[in-house]
């Protein structure tokens, strides 16, 4: 592989074939997870199922999507991570580069209960583990009647209706291109109209386009802004901690989601499929949803009343047509940098 010429060469010299035959039973597998409550949930809700079933230990490592992708790119013959949780775009990149194995019902029986939109766009090389929906968290005192739809919200922000007290995701955030796509859908898919609105919003309303979720929460929590476009699970967590002055909703007609996409790295041991199957078990999926307050894709899961209104329903989820828009992401990011100040 050219991209990591020396690393790959060195790896192949040391280990010209995968160290473990794919079918051999390893001592442990390495699973990637986002930090904090995400990793805790995986250790609590998925790992025991896999360890009990296989007798193989799980090493959960925390990090970020781009970092994990880099690691398996550098050593595809012996991937340092067996199970990945890449973002949607990185899953597509990894799929195109042949770094992921394709799941089937035989390998992952619980795949049968996952709707197509959560795995087919990735050619079954990645399956959604959980689904975070993008909505609006707002200060109920400052904005008692928030706009009902995304279009009304974007128009209001572009017109400066809320003053310079708004924060939106940056186009350069991991899910930034998807947010630009969502904005364009409110204007008949016109990407120019979306950029025009976001540019006007930048001038009249936006204090800062956030680039990390922590940054967004900091802006809202310190009341630097009255409205922030943010993830549902994180918002509900914040509200549940006694911040009753804050509200959260998903504008009509629906929203994009941030998905942690489960994948088995190519050349990872086959037993790793059992981990994915455990993660997609209805019972484990529900426990995961209750822990992180994000929706899960398994359609057999029945949410209890305590979280039913906090997780996005499947019919409100909009998945961008990645096969059509993915190759535009680079140019959208470049345009974002040039036009949005």
């Amino acid at each position, binding site marked *: 592989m*050219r*991209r*990591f*010429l*020396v690393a790959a060469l060195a790896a192949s010299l040391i280990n010209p074939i995968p160290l473990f035959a794919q079918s051999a039973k390893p001592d442990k597998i390495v699973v990637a997870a986002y930090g904090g409550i995400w990793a805790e949930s995986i250790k609590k809700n998925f790992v025991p199922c896999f360890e009990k079933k296989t007798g193989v230990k799980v090493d959960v490592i925390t990090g*970020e999507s*781009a970092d994990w*992708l880099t690691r398996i790119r550098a050593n595809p013959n012996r991937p340092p991570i067996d199970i990945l949780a890449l973002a949607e*775009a*990185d899953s597509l*990149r990894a799929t195109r580069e042949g770094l992921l194995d394709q799941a089937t019902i035989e390998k992952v029986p619980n795949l049968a209960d996952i709707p197509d939109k959560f795995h087919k766009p990735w050619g079954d090389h990645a399956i959604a583990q959980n689904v975070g929906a993008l909505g609006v968290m707002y200060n109920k005192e400052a904005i008692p009647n928030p706009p009902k739809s995304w279009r009304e919200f974007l128009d209001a922000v572009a017109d400066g209706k809320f003053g310079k007290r708004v924060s939106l995701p*940056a186009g*350069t*955030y*991991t899910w*930034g*291109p998807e947010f630009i796509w969502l904005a364009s859908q409110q204007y008949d898919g016109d990407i120019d109209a979306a950029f025009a609105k976001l540019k006007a919003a*930048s001038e009249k309303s936006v*204090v*800062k*386009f956030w*680039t*990390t979720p*922590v*940054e967004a929460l*900091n802006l809202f929590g*310190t*009341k*630097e802004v009255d409205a922030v476009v943010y993830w549902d699970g994180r918002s509900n967590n914040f509200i549940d901690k006694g911040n009753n002055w804050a509200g959260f909703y998903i504008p009509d007609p629906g929203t994009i989601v941030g998905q942690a996409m489960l994948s088995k790295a190519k050349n990872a041991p086959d037993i790793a499929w059992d981990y994915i199957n455990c993660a997609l078990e209805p019972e484990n999926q529900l426990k995961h949803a209750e822990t992180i307050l994000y929706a899960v894709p398994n359609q057999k899961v029945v949410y209890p009343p305590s979280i039913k209104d906090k997780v996005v329903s499947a019919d409100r989820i909009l998945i961008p047509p990645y096969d059509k828009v993915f190759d535009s*992401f*680079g140019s959208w*990011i*470049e345009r*974002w*940098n*040039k036009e*949005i*100040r």
Partner: protein
Amino acid sequence: MAILSSPAEPAHPVASRGGIRRLPLGLLPALIFLAVFFAAPLLINLLESLRGPGETHSLAQFARIFGDAYYLTVIGQTLLFGLVVTLACALLGYPLGYAVARTEGTFKVVLIFLVVTPLLVNVVVRSFGWLVILGGNGAINAGMRALGLPKLNLIYNWTGVGIAMVHVLLPFMALSVAGTLETLDRRIEEAARVLGAPPHRLFWHVTLPMSAQGLITGSILCFTLSIGSFVTALLLGKNSTMVLPLLIYQQLTVASDWPFAAAMGVTLLILVSAILWLQGRLVGEPRGRP
């Protein structure tokens, strides 16, 4: 050209009859380390920057950078930002370094600890700390409000990024200056004083020239570190405060355009090297201390 000496040859630098400097064998591990962890990654980065469609090589990524006014602007503001931060560090760091060099005992230890404190805190934590202090509802603006004064816009602009950057780079300047001042022969300043030089002339004509080497070392450190930093610009700036390292980070993590990121990395390296070379030429060889 540098060559390695054989085991039978002296293990200290000597000039051969041909003028070729021989390096001691003891440097071999360091050279291997540099080759593997410095030269090889640079080479990989260079090859990546030249990667064209398919198996071809081209300068297309560099043409993209130098043919686009936006990227040229970012390069310009990156360099200007580095220069301004370095200047601010020099203005604030010199008196601080002077104080460190000219104090003794417990106070000196306390002063050094205070100077290096910014380096003990993680960059993300430090940046969020600045958000709390400089934000619209932060400590400074709370004070402004209490005094009935208008709100100051101190973050998400060059001011905030600059303040945070100077804060963390100040130790490099202060300690470089202090290190030089501590080795100066105080009798020279004493002689100037005895000969009637007033304090300001003593500083301009004796102390400052003799401590210039520390100022130069600190400036090099501050400049190179400031134009290579992106976390502070990411958290305390916005799109209008774009710097080249942040663009590189974006291309790697979001756009996943590695050849373009590599080309920007090579460009940054060449620019820094050129500026340091130019600085070396302008400053010239340091004058030996008496």
